[in-house]
């Protein structure tokens, strides 16, 4: 049973053309995260939501935005993708945002920018 679902699994976009990646969860978790992972690198946290509270990482470019319309869904919007934004984008959830909570990851969306 899928718990964290990401669509699409593969996304191709053109340089500068806005793109939206989606994530949904069936875990009813409070926290949803977006990570960017480039080849052979560690996942890098972009931002997270605790319920409706948005928390942006200091070094996340303004080009990246996020929306969480309800508990189950969270979207990553890349307003003007550049070649450097090609990466795997991982969505994750957790019950809360601290302590011993672990994160549940989706399968990822691989973004290609032409």
């Amino acid at each position, binding site marked *: 049973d899928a718990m964290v679902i990401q669509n699409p699994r593969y996304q191709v976009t053109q340089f500068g053309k806005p793109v939206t990646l989606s994530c949904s969860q069936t875990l009813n978790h409070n926290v949803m995260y977006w990570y960017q992972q480039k080849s052979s690198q*560690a996942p890098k946290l972009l931002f997270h939501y605790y319920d409706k509270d948005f928390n942006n990482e200091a070094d996340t470019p303004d080009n990246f935005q996020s929306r969480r319309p309800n508990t189950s869904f969270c979207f990553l919007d890349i307003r003007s993708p550049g070649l450097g934004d090609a990466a*795997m984008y*991982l969505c994750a959830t957790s019950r809360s945002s601290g302590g011993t909570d*672990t994160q549940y990851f989706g399968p990822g969306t691989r973004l290609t920018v032409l």
Partner: protein
Amino acid sequence: SQQGEEDPQALSIQEGENATMNCSYKTSINNLQWYRQNSGRGLVHLILIRSNEREKHSGRLRVTLDTSKKSSSLLITASRAADTASYFCARRNTGFQKLVFGTGTRLLVSP
């Protein structure tokens, strides 16, 4: 950098052998977690060790933590080809809430 460092970066072994991966960090932690990532997939949580624990086991996995040396190790015993994946440590720093992932170890287990 806040990232933990993992070594080796890559490890190649035969089925049945043990695999040991190490993770070092620089700040005080609340806990440290290990995740596995199969190629092109999301991460899967394996095991969590709290800062006041020294060793934990889960099946063929054994994790140790030495807070005085700020290091942790993951041992996979009797490895299988299906263990082929990248393994990441992730620490929850004291006073901070987010997980900080290490650079990962790519494990290849050959039949």
